[in-house]
C-alpha cells in the first residue's frame, strides 16, 4: 500500500496515451547542444568537416558530474558554434548535416552476459552512454547511483508521470515492458540492491497489469500502484509514497536511503547495456491548443522545435507559449530554433486558451495554497515577504524548501504568481550568498594584508 502525502492537486490531465507513437524522421540538420545535463558542459570531440556515425561520442567532459553526448544521426559536422539552447541562452552546439543513412556506430558493443551482472561494468556503461535523468532533471545517472552506494537501501523507479499532457513514460511501459523491467534490473544491480520498487499512478492501469503479467519479481522489481495526484512523481513524494520516509528539509534522497530514477532513464539503461545504443533518443509528447493534433513521438535529440511543429502539421492557432516538459513544472522556451534535449519530456504549444493570468492578482487569504502544498509550507506568507524582499522572514517561512511543484499557484483563486516568485526568491538568495562570500573573502584578504 502506498503512503499518502499532504496536499497535491488534480489538474485537468488531458492525457492522450491512445495516440500511437510516431517516429519522427530526423531532420536534415541536427543541432546538438554540448550541455544536456546538470554539471560540467561537454567539450566537442569532433571538428567541422568530420564524418560522424549515429551514436558516436561527439562531446565529453572528464568531470565526475557530467555525461558524454552522442551524435543522434550519421553525417557531417558542418558547424560548431553557439546555438539557442532550449533553456535560453546560446550554448555551444555541434551542428550535423544528416545523411539520412543512420549508419550506426559500433564503439559501444552490447554487454556480455557476464558484464550484465557486474555492477561496475553497468555503471561504466551508464556513464559512457551519456545517460541522465530523463524525467527532466538531467542529473547524470551514473554519478547519482555511485553517490548512493552504501547509503541507499531502496531503489525507486518513477512511473507516476503525474504531469498533465505527458504520455512518454506510459507509452514506454506499454510498448517496451520487458525491456523496461530489464533496465530496472540493471539499475538495481548497479545500485547493489536486491529489490527495486516501480511506482506507477493508477491512471495507467493497463501498464500496471501488463508489467505485472511479466512477473516483475523475476527481475527483482515490485510494481506499486499509486494514488493519482499531482505531484506524485516528485522525488520526495515518490519516496514518501513507497517508503513513508520523508526527506529532511535541505536533505537529499540518499539521506533517507533512497534513489529515484525515471522510467525512460531505466529504458535508456536497457538500450545502452543490451543493445549498445547510447542516449540520443526519447519518447515525448507534443500537445497544446496551438497545434492540431497531439503527438506522442520517438524523437532524436537535437531536433529543432520548428521542425517538430511542422511534423505535427503546423500551428492552427497563434501560439503564445512553448513549454518544455509538463505544464506544472515545465520551463519556457522562447525560441523555436532551440532543440529538444535528453530531458525534454514534452513540448507544449499553448495559446491564450490555457492562460488564466489576471491583471490584478489579489490574495484573498483563503488558505488554499496551504491545503495543497505537499511540503506543508505557507505560500501566502512566503509571497508576502518575497514582495517585501524580507529575506529573514522568507527563510523563516522556508522558501528554500519549496520544491517548485506549482500546486499553490495552480490552485490560487487570486491567481498570484506564487511558484514563480519562490523560484526568483531562491535566485536572490543565491546571489546574496555569493555576495556575502565575496565580501567575506575580500575582508579576509584585507586582514591578511595587514
Amino acid at each position, binding site marked *: 500500500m502506498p503512503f499518502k*502525502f499532504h496536499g497535491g*492537486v488534480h*489538474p*485537468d490531465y488531458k492525457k492522450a496515451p491512445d495516440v500511437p507513437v510516431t517516429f519522427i524522421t530526423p531532420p536534415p540538420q541536427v543541432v546538438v547542444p554540448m550541455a544536456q545535463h546538470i554539471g560540467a558542459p561537454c567539450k566537442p570531440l569532433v571538428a567541422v568537416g568530420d564524418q560522424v556515425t549515429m551514436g558516436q561520442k561527439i562531446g565529453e567532459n572528464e568531470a565526475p558530474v557530467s555525461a558524454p553526448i552522442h551524435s543522434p544521426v550519421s553525417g557531417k559536422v558542418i558547424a560548431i558554434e553557439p546555438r539557442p539552447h532550449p533553456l535560453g541562452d546560446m550554448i555551444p552546439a555541434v551542428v550535423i548535416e544528416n545523411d539520412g543513412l543512420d549508419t550506426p556506430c559500433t564503439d559501444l558493443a552490447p554487454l556480455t552476459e557476464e558484464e550484465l551482472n557486474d555492477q561496475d561494468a553497468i555503471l561504466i556503461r551508464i556513464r559512457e552512454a551519456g545517460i541522465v535523468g530523463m524525467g527532466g532533471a538531467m542529473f547524470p545517472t551514473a554519478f547519482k547511483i555511485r553517490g548512493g552506494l552504501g547509503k541507499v537501501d531502496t531503489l525507486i523507479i518513477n512511473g507516476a508521470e503525474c504531469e*498533465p499532457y505527458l504520455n512518454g513514460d506510459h507509452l514506454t511501459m506499454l510498448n517496451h515492458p520487458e525491456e523496461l523491467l530489464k533496465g530496472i534490473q540493471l539499475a538495481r544491480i548497479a545500485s547493489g540492491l536486491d529489490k527495486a520498487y516501480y511506482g506507477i499512478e493508477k491512471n495507467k492501469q493497463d501498464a500496471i497489469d501488463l508489467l505485472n503479467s511479466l512477473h516483475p519479481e523475476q527481475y527483482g522489481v515490485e510494481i506499486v500502484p499509486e494514488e493519482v495526484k499531482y505531484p506524485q512523481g516528485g522525488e*520526495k513524494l515518490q519516496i514518501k509514497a513507497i517508503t513513508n520516509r*520523508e*526527506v*529532511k*528539509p535541505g536533505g537529499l534522497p540518499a539521506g533517507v536511503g533512497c534513489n529515484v530514477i525515471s522510467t525512460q532513464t531505466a529504458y535508456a539503461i536497457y538500450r545502452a547495456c543490451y543493445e549498445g545504443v547510447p542516449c540520443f533518443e526519447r519518447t515525448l509528447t507534443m500537445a497544446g491548443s496551438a497545434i492540431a493534433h497531439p503527438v506522442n513521438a520517438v524523437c532524436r535529440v537535437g531536433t529543432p*522545435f*520548428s521542425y517538430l*511543429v511542422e511534423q505535427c502539421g503546423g*500551428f492552427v492557432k*497563434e*501560439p503564445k*507559449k*512553448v*513549454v518544455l516538459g509538463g*505544464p*506544472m*513544472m*515545465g*520551463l*519556457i*522556451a*522562447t525560441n*523555436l530554433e532551440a532543440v529538444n534535449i535528453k530531458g525534454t519530456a514534452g513540448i*507544449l504549444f499553448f495559446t491564450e486558451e*490555457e*492562460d*488564466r*493570468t*489576471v*491583471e*490584478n492578482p*489579489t490574495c*484573498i*487569504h*483563503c*488558505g488554499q495554497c*496551504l*491545503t495543497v502544498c505537499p*511540503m*506543508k*509550507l*505557507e505560500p501566502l*506568507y512566503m509571497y508576502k515577504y518575497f514582495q517585501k524582499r524580507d529575506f529573514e522572514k522568507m527563510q523563516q517561512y*522556508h522558501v528554500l*524548501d519549496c520544491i*517548485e511543484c*506549482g500546486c499553490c499557484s*495552480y*490552485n490560487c*483563486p*487570486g*491567481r498570484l504568481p506564487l*511558484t*514563480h516568485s519562490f*523560484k526568483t526568491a531562491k535566485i536572490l538568495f543565491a546571489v546574496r550568498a555569493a555576495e556575502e562570500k565575496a565580501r567575506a573573502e575580500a575582508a579576509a584578504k584585507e586582514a591578511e594584508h595587514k
Partner: protein
Amino acid sequence: MTPKEYTFDAGYQPQVRARRGTREIMLDVIIALLPAVAVGVWQFGFAALIPVATSIASCVFFEWGYRKLMKKPSSIGDLSAVLTGLLLAMTLPGNTPWWIPIIGAFFSIVLVKQLYGGIGKNFLNPALAGRAFLFASYATIMVNWNGWLGSVDAVSTATPLAQLYAAEPTAPTISMLDMFLGKMPGCFGEVSTLALLLGGVYLLCRKVITWHIPVSCFATVAVLTLIFGNGGMNHVDWMLYNLLSGGLVLGTIFMATDYSTSPVTARGRIIYGIGIGVLTVVIRYFGGYPEGNTFAILIMNCCAWFLDQLTQPRQFGVTREDVKAKKAAAKAAKKEAKEAAANG
C-alpha cells in the same frame, strides 16, 4: 507563416491554472446561501427581499465608487461585494426598513473593507461589523421582530434565544423542529438551521471551506452548554436550543469561515473555532446580550493573524522530535546568552 514570426510569453510557472478563481468561489458561497434566502422569503414574505436588494446594490456601489475615487482597479467583478451585501442583509430582521442596509453597507465596505486595502486585507468581517454597527446605532429597529409572518401575539415575537436568556429562563414557545426548519422570529437569513447546514455541506463538498472552523466551533458550544446547562431545563434540550438559535449556524458556517478574517493554518482554524465557541457561550451567559455569536466572531477576527503566526505547520520531513529538539536548542542558547551576560 513561418514559425519565426512568433513572439512568446515568458509565462509564469505553472503554465496551467485551475479554473476556479476568486469570482467562482464567491459565487459558490452565494449559491450556498440561497436555501436560507428561500426560507427567509417563506417566513417573512417577498417584502423581505427589499432590504436584501438595497444591501447588495449599495455594497456593490460603494465598492465600485471607493475604488474609482481612489483610482484603484475595480474589484466588483470578483463578486465579493455582492456576497457581503447578501450576508449583511441576512443578519438583519426581515422587516428592516429599506434604507438601513445602505448605512450598514457603507460601514462594511468603505470603513471595514476598503480602507484596509480591500478583499483579503481587512481584519474584521465586513458583514458582521456592519451588523454590529447597525445594532448599536438603531437598536429598536433592529430588534423589531414583528415582520415575521407567523407572529400572532406578543409572546411569539420574542426570539427563542431571548426567551432562553430571559431573567427567568423559559423553554422557547416554538418547537425544536420548527426552529430547525426556520419557523421562528429572527433575522432574515438566520432562522433555518436546515437550510444553512445544506449550504455548509455544499461549501464543504466544493472545498470552499474546510471543516475545521465550523466543527470546532459547534462542538465547543455544544460541550459547554451541555456541561453548564441552565435553570431547571434538561441539559440536552438546553444545548440543542442553544445551537439552533441566535444566528449561531449562519455565523459559524458563513461568517467565521470568511477567508480574510480567519486563520489559514489547520491548527489555527481549530483554535479559532474553539475561541468563537467559548466567547459565544460566555457572552450569552454573562453578557446580558444573547446575540453573542456576532461579537465572538469579531473578537476572534482580531486574533486570526496572530493564530497564523502561532501555528506554523510542521514542514514535510520535519518530525515532532525535530521541533522539540530545535526548541530545546533555542532555549539553551538563550540561557547561555543570559548567563554570559550575567557573568559580564
